[in-house]
């Protein structure tokens, strides 16, 4: 178990304004072809008003972690084999389905990447937002409609009243994402999980949506978990970053520390593979090889076959996520050397 030393859990794991804590979570997918170990001990937390970015490439487990937190993981094939997800200190994984449902929407809400498939195409956008007020707040049809229009207005959809009775396909991509934000914020959640909220959008629209999310977050002092693979977006909005690789957190740090001095070779590799101005015409530095097959994760550090710094110890011992400074942790045997190099 590595979580005693991870930042955030602070040894005792008791919250101090701590909204959501994921603690040594383990998830596997049991398929016909074998068992894929998708999450292998993930620990992170988010406090009120802060933005935690979960950074990782496809297959790193960042979305599966979020789905487990929300309780929308397909089970089977998914199985939670260990760990806790605590909301205000209470483990959600052992709660009754009824208790969990109450947290969803009001406690924790989620925005998805693909707004076209996340919205129901046969109901109007307005209906889908108003539905929550009727079911969860017991409002009348007319009141719910009024509240839904207010929500659409808050996410800056022009002519919210007229747009209420439009269907999702009548909205542009950016507007659909706004509608989804309105829907997820309708019940005033304390934590918002945004899973690649702007990946499907153009840059100018992406900037609008990220602005809107930041603004709403500040107003409501929400805790936000931003799941993304985009190092640019993260640099703009995150307070803290957790980098995931092969179902583990390999580095956790304050955003400024992480970009200035990454403490894990994977993070360093990611930052190095961004095309830079001063290296135009030169070969890009890359991370060699491919992410591991989750049904057959290599022994020792899962990153060792691709790591330029790998030593024999890396093939034998799994490096635990150890604290290496204030609010910083790295799961690399050579983290200290990496941070202290020039």
């Amino acid at each position, binding site marked *: 178990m590595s979580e005693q030393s991870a930042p955030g859990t602070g040894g005792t794991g008791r919250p101090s304004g701590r909204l959501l804590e994921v603690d040594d979570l383990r998830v596997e997918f049991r398929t016909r072809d074998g068992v894929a170990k998708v999450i292998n001990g993930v620990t992170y937390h988010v406090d009120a008003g802060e933005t935690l970015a979960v950074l990782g490439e496809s297959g790193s487990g960042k979305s599966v972690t979020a789905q487990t937190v929300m309780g929308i993981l397909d089970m089977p094939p998914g199985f939670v084999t260990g760990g806790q997800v605590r909301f205000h200190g209470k483990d959600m994984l052992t709660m009754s389905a009824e208790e969990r449902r109450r947290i969803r929407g009001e406690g924790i809400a989620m925005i998805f990447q693909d707004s076209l498939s996340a919205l129901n195409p046969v109901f109007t956008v307005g209906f889908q937002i108003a539905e929550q007020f009727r079911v969860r707040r017991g409002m009348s049809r007319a009141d719910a409609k009024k509240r839904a229009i207010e929500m659409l207005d808050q996410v800056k959809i022009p002519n919210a009243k007229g747009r209420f009775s439009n269907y999702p396909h009548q909205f542009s991509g950016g507007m659909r994402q706004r509608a989804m934000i309105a829907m997820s914020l309708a019940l005033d959640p304390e934590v918002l999980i945004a899973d690649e909220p702007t990946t499907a959008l153009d840059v100018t629209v992406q900037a609008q949506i990220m602005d809107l999310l930041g603004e709403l977050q500040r107003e409501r002092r929400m805790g936000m978990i931003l799941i993304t693979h985009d190092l640019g977006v993260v640099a703009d909005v995150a307070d803290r970053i957790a980098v995931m690789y092969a179902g583990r957190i390999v580095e956790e740090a304050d955003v400024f520390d992480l970009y200035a001095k990454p403490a894990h070779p994977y993070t360093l590799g990611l930052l190095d593979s*961004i095309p830079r101005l001063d290296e135009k015409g030169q070969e890009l530095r890359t991370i060699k090889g491919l992410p591991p097959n989750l049904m057959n994760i290599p022994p020792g550090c899962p990153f060792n076959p691709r790591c330029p710094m790998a030593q024999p110890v890396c093939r034998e011992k799994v490096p635990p996520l150890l604290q290496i400074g204030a609010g910083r942790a790295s799961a690399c045997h050579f983290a200290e050397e990496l941070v202290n190099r020039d």
Partner: protein
Amino acid sequence: MTENILEVRDLVKHYPVTQGIVLKKTIGHVKAVDGVSFDLKAGETLGVVGESGCGKSTLSRVLMSLEKPTAGSVLYKGQDIATLSAGAMRRLRRQIQLVMQDPYTSLNPRMTVGDLIGEPFEIHPDVAPKGSRRGKVKELLDLVGLNPEHINRYPHQFSGGQRQRIGIARALALRPEIIICDEPVSALDVSIQAQVMNLLEKLQNELGLSYVFIAHDLSVVRHLSDRVAVMYLGKIVEIGTEDEIYERPTHPYTQALLSAVPVPDPTLRDSKAIIRLTGDVPSPISPPSGCRFRTRCWKAQDVCAEQVPLLEVRPGSDHPSACHFAEKREIVASHPA
């Protein structure tokens, strides 16, 4: 002066919008590409950037002769490809090949890698006679950094980045002069993206290829391109060398686009002035009169609604820009040196 291998003149591609099922009535046109001109020099990379719906993929389809242009012409080494005979057209197709965006859907899952890469030889048997094909495919696999032993595998046995390499090998099979890359790395993870970009650059140096590199990611385009064209709603709004576009952009749209790109450096968070565009891209069925960008532009004046700004070099600038009020503006758009 290097020769132009491809010249595009006033290219227009409109798609009819119809109503009714039996008696189809045309009620309008989607003006996907609406008067685009540029040159591609031998051995260079021309980047084409723009947001979804700006017509960059339609442009690639017309360049590939997969679509007939509504008006305008594409000249390959000075010859209008619309006037070519069927035989000459078939020979031309060898010279222009396409690498597609999605390596998951662009490869037939029932064909082995050997068959996929070897298929172009069926149509152009003169490139590789029957007996030599397997050897040629293995050479191609080696060229794009895949194991030639994997010739009998199926696409699903490869990762996304490897599949994109298969797509590139297939485009190279007929030894083309021009490769049109339509978002070749946007479906890939960052670490894999860099590998594929390096491969594209290596191939260009070794084989002397010319690229039309279409993408929405401005930093990717900058890294690979010699010259860049920025498209908005079916038109090129600004074109110039990579330096001119990224360091001295003069069109408001280019400036907004560059400023909106998130910079992977948190210390620039507050020093970076982002130009916020409001609203969405208007419908290409009824684009705004005059300048198409005027509905989202902070500089728009009456003249912008009346007069279409020409793509030309204006005083105080060194490259063509289609704005009545083109002027330089500093944008912190890329990672500082």
